[in-house]
Every structure is written in C-alpha cells, then in structure tokens.
C-alpha cells in the first residue's frame, strides 16, 4: 500500500542507526535553518542537502514522491503572494483596479518572494517526511512519555492506527467494488458507506482498547529511563545538528545569507554565501559518510 511507505521502517542507514532523540533534534535543526534563512541560494543548498540525506538514508524515492506532492502547494503560494502584495517596483503585469485588493500591479519582487516562501514550505514538508521515515516514533514517544506518558501513549496509538485504518479502508473499498452494481452511489449510498467506515473504526478502537486494558494501560506508570551508550552515529548527528544550528544563526546574523524582496530584490551571492552553502551541505551530509555499524 502506498500510504504505508510514508511510515518509519528500520533501514540500514546512519540516520536510522542514530538514537531517535538525536534524529529528531537533527530534523529540528534543519527546520530551524529553513525558517531563519531566506537567501534563495542557501535554501537551494539546503534542499539539495535534504534530498541527498534522503538518498543516504535509503528513502530517496519516497522523498522524491513527497517533493512532487509538495510541488502542489508551490503554485497557490506564489499566485496568492503575487496577487496580494504589490510592494515591489518591477511591475510585469497591470490588472487594473481590483476593488478591495487595490491596484492589480503584479511585481517581480512579489513573485520571487512567493517562490522563496514556497521553497521554504516545500523544505519543511521534505524534512518532516524525512524525519517520519527515519526517526523511530516509539522511541520519540517514549521520551515524551517521561513528560506526559498518557498523552504520548495516546499519540503512539494514533500513529499505529493510521496504517491499520488505511488497510481497513482499502479492504472496505475493495469489498464495495466487488458488488455487482458497484459501490453504493448517491448521497444516501455515500452516507451509508461513511457510516460503515466509522462503525468499522469504532469496532477497531474497541478491540485496541480491550488490548490496552489487559496490557495494564489503566495502571500505566512513567516509562523507565533507558541508559544507552552513545554510538558513533548518535555523536555524528548530534554534532551535525549543532553545526546546522550555528550556521543558521551565523547566516541570519551576518550578510552571508542576506535577502530582501521589497521594494527591490536584494540577494547577494558573496564568498560568504558560497561558504555557508558548502558548510551547510557538509554539516548535513558528512554523518552519512560513516556507514559502520548500521545493519538492521
């Protein structure tokens, strides 16, 4: 099933071999860099780094598919930005008076800024996908269970139920397709189908609840702290995460990643920008070079 490929599966890769807490921190560092940096070249370097990291983690194909899905959000973001912001000075089309939206002057600056925002959204989608594919959710939730264990367990269950319910939905759809007259049609038919789906989900939930009951959910206590020795991959991705955070802050505070769209485009490509791009690529990708001890 296609939806299943977006879930965590232990693969032989350095990122999978790193502890979940470090993996999550690494993904958070990439997200932070995406949020604070605006220079298009730096963002493209980050995009390349994330895609290469996906390949290094053995989930390149799924990431590429996710990128295609992410491209769907690109166009509306750009179009809305161009239609709503008229602050740039380089007008490439005049649509006249747009009533409450004012003069419909479409500017190059709004187009570029919209594209940068869309690129950032795409990057965040890719980083989230990469994290969901490579960071063990059970380990993350286990960490959270020390803070709020019932909420974390409920979240864990919800995650587990997604593939189960997806499989149920596929089975139900298949069963309806085998009816000689096809699946129920019309509003009434759809309501009946929806009711059956909800009924099935509730049945599932009841069964899972019964299982949890006998596994002691009612008397559940805080998960014990597990002391695990730090592996080379834990250390490498921790260093990588810290390096990415430092580079992101440096890029934000210095002129290396400066960018402004209004009133005129300003995106200088200096030596500092190139160094920042190379440093980000190296910081993100170097941990993938060490492939010792990654077997599942």
């Amino acid at each position: 099933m296609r939806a299943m490929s977006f879930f965590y599966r232990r693969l032989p890769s350095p990122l999978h071999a790193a502890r979940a807490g470090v993996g999550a921190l690494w993904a958070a560092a990439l997200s932070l860099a995406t949020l604070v940096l605006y220079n298009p070249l730096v963002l493209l370097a980050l995009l390349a780094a994330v895609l290469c990291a996906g390949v290094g983690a053995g989930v390149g194909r799924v990431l590429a598919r996710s990128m295609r899905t992410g491209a769907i959000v690109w166009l509306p973001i750009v179009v809305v930005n161009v239609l709503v912001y008229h602050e740039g000075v380089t007008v490439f089309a005049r649509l006249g008076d747009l009533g409450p939206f004012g003069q419909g002057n479409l500017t190059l600056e709004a187009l570029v800024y919209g594209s940068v925002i869309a690129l950032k959204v795409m990057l965040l989608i890719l980083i989230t996908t990469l994290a969901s594919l490579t960071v063990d959710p059970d380990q993350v939730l286990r960490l959270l269970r020390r803070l709020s264990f019932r909420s974390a367990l409920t979240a864990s269950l919800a995650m587990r139920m997604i593939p189960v319910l997806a499989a149920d939905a596929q089975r139900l759809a298949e069963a309806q397709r085998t009816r000689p007259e096809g699946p129920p049609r019309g509003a009434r038919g759809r309501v009946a189908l929806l009711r059956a789906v909800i009924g099935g989900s509730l049945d599932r939930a009841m069964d899972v609840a019964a299982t949890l009951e006998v596994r002691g959910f009612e008397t559940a206590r805080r998960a014990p702290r597990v002391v695990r020795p730090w592996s080379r991959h834990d250390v490498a991705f921790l260093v990588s995460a810290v390096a990415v955070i430092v580079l992101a802050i440096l890029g934000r505070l210095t002129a290396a990643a400066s960018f402004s769209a209004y009133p005129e485009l300003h995106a200088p490509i200096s030596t500092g920008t190139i160094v920042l791009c190379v440093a980000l690529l190296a910081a993100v990708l170097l941990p993938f070079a060490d492939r010792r001890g990654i077997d599942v």
Partner: protein
Amino acid sequence: MTAPLVSFDRVTYSYPGVAAPALNDVSLEIGPGEFCLLAGLSGHGKSTLLHAACGLVPHFHGGHFAGRVTLAGLDTREHGPARLGAFAGVLFQDPETQLVMSSVRAELALALENRGHGAAAVARGVEEVALALGIDSLLDRSTHELSGGEKQRVALGAALAGRPRLVLLDEPTSQLDPVAGDELIGLLRRLNQEWETTIVLAEHRLERCLSSVDRVIALEGGRVGCDSEPQAFLAWAGQSSPALQTPAAKLFALAGLRPAPAGVREARATLRAHRLLPDEEPSRIGQSQPARPRRKAKLRRAAKPAAALEYDGVWHELRNGPAILRGATLRVQAGESVALMGRNGAGKSTLLRHAAGLLEPTRGRIERAGRVALLLQNPGDYFVHERVAEEAPEQALAAVGLAGMAGRNPRDLSGGERQRLALAIVTGSGDEPAVLALDEPTRGMDREAKGELARELRRRSERGQAVIVATHDPEFAAACADRAVLMADGRVIADGTAAELLAGGWYFATETARILSGAARALLPEQGAELLRARRDGAETPIDARDAHAIVPGVA
C-alpha cells in the same frame, strides 16, 4: 491440594442490551499448569468465558454479572483487567488489533513498562520472550510490515512478556496457515511443559490441538456441557454434539472402532493394534502430486471446452517491491470446484483479486467466460446498511436461505449467516456469475457453518458455476472441491484432484488422510471408514473422491 489459578463460581453474564445470557451458571476451576481447550460452536460463550477470566467482563463490556470469578485469588469484580493482567496474558483472534506500538521491541516492552518495571527488567523481559518465541530477528521491525503469522507471534510475545501464570487465547490460529497454526500450538505446548504456564485455548479446529491438551471444556448455550479429558470429551461429542467431533473421532465412530482418538498418532496406534494399518508403509512422497508433462497438458487443453476462468502466465510485480505472482497459470472450467491452498503470502488472495479485476496483471493475461463474483475474507466489509433487505436483492437473499431475515441488522447475524449474506451481495440477483471466487471464507467459522457453506458451494458447481476457494482448511477443501491447487511463491506448484493432493501431505492433508497415510486417497471420515470396513472384511477397494462426496457432502 493446589489452589486453583482460575475459578468460576456460578457465573451468569449477559451483555448490555441482550436478554439471553452469554454465560449461564458456569462453575469450574482451572489449576496451575493445566492446558485446557475451550470447545463449542460460535456464539456459545467461549470468548465471553475468556473475557470473564481476565476481567474484561464485566469491567470493559459492562452488562449483567452474577457469581464470582477469581484469578490468582483476586476477585475480578474488585480488580480490573490492568491489575489482573499481571497474572493473565491474553491473545485475541485478530492480531492486527493487538499490536498497539510501531515497533516489535516497543510492543513487547509496553506491558512491562506499564507495570512499572525498571529499564533493566524491561530489556531482559523483552530479550527473553523474543528468544523464547523465536522472534528476536523481528525486534527492530515495524509492526505494520509483519506477516499475519509474525503478528500473531509478536502479540503472543506481548502477552507473555511479563511471564504471566495464565495465558488465554481466543482462536489464535484462525488466520494462520496450517504450518503457522501448528507452530503456534507447538509453542503453547512448550510453554506449558517447560514453564508450567497454564493455557486456556478457545479453538474451532479441535483436531489441531486436541492431542496437546490435558482437558477440554465444552460450552453449549453458555453452560458447561462437558468438562473432561480429551478421550471422554470425544465420547461425549459423539453422543451429544456431533458438530464438535474431530474427523479422527468421526472416522472411528463410523468404522465402529473405539476408543475415539485424540490425534493422528493415537489413531494410527489403535489401527495398528486392530491390524487395520500396516506396520511399515512405503514413502508416499511424490505420489500425491503426479507430474504433468507440459506437452500432454497442452494437447489435453486443446481438446477441452472453453474455460470459465483462465490465467496465462500472470505476474503481479509491485513497484519497488517483490513479485507476488510469478507466471501463475491456471485454468478452471465451468462446473469445476477448485481449492486453492498454500502458505500465508503464497499469492492465493492476489490470484483471486486478479480474477475479479480488482488488480491488473503486470504481465500475462486472464480470460473470463463471464462475471466473476469475489467474496473477500471479511464478510463485514460488505455491510453498509442497517437491514439485510437493503444489502442484497430479495431473490439473492432467498437463494442463500436468508429470506426470513430481511428485517435484521447484518451485524447481528451469526458468522455463517454473515458469510451467506455477503455471498448474496456479491452474486446479486441478475445473471448468475460464471465464476464464484471465495477468499478464506471459513475464518472463525464453526464446523456446522463450514458444512453448510461447503454444501452451498457444491450446489453452485453442480449448477455449472466454476467455484474457486482459497482456504487453509484441508477438511473444508476436501468437502467442497474436486480439484486442489497448491501455490507457493506466487506460482502453482501442484495441481491435481483433491484426492491426489490432499491425501499425501503433512500440512496440506486432511486428518483422515494423515491417519490412513493417504491410502485409497480417502480424505473424509466417511471415505476412511468405508476403507477401514473393507480392510476389516478383507476386501480393500479404492474410493474415488467424487463418489465419496456423494456419500456425505459436508465438512468432516
């Protein structure tokens, strides 16, 4: 005297909103280290009894509860399932709903963590249970990518992780192939013998586990009908509840032999003692699967009438994944009934989905003489309305004997009735389908319902419909099919008459065939009994499977 681990004292229980009690004045005691089999037809209280033993009844289900159940000295009215879970591990029928975490390791650890064990105790508990059940290689796998058999093992591991004194299992083998089912029963026996774990196992296919258990508790209408050793239970079943008789017991009863055997080994020993089985038998390997020279097959095919369904070198290859079907070739004629057998994951369900057009082959072709009606594994997936009458046309309901139930809610029907309603839905009332394909239709069904379905399928094939059934149940296959096809790794690896294929194997063979070593290709107890009588009279005659179906059509 050792104190009982579980005790039921005059327990009567009704589910909320249901007048009839699911358990009716049940009193029994189960001691430490016992291996008990819970027998009974569907809806007679087996699951309810298991739920009462672990406290889910009444704490989780509610309802009306009278009497007293104690587990390890704790009264279940005062202690909930979470507290009782320290003493009882529970394994339900559907492994899918028993795995609540994303990875196997986290699944095994959950119950231990919930009970407040320290990190070292959790790690040790996980390691030990994984080693004991042979699932150590699965520890870092995601639960959603496991096979059905693996899921069931992991769920059992999760139930056993805290080393409970009692394990309650509700039809754990119903979704497993014969190999995985036998493995699970063997595992339970080992747990029972090596660690003295008390096992209470509810099961429909009694022949699978009767020889392993110490005691059988049979429930009838929520009451204890019989509580005795396997031999005495079989004697009771022969007299009072024939639907609970195992094929071996039925074989002996029909042949006039005593005592009824609890398993194949015991049956063979008795037959040897009566000189009805030779002391040494030649190896039968290869005899059950006659080779079919390709050229001859082609010549024969040329002379045959058009097929109702024909697969010609069908491949189903997943993108970025394995090939599920690898050049499957199969021809089913009108009026033929075919049992499709093989391990879980052999490609049976995929083959049937291709027949109905739910999947398209990536290579090869499929030809159909007409409509293919496909009945998938879960009949409940077909039900979207509140009344039976809204689900299928009147004519179709009448054809499956549900005309009198038009006003009922489909979800209130029994297992057998639900299966028949689903059959009415997929066959419809218009033109009869040329092919009726059924995917594991007997899951969770008792012997009576299976017999009913087998008879219905026979009637349909006699009317000229081609019937193709994927099943793990050799007894059902023998009862409903003339021909059996064995699949492995997406290919047809053996294809012959049911008598040829089901008479000479270990796993894909009926109990009667295993007892008689496939002699005279007797598959069903009626056929076997005829052979034994002939042997006793000194006039052994081979029996043809088709003739024997005429003797008693139904499941043994």
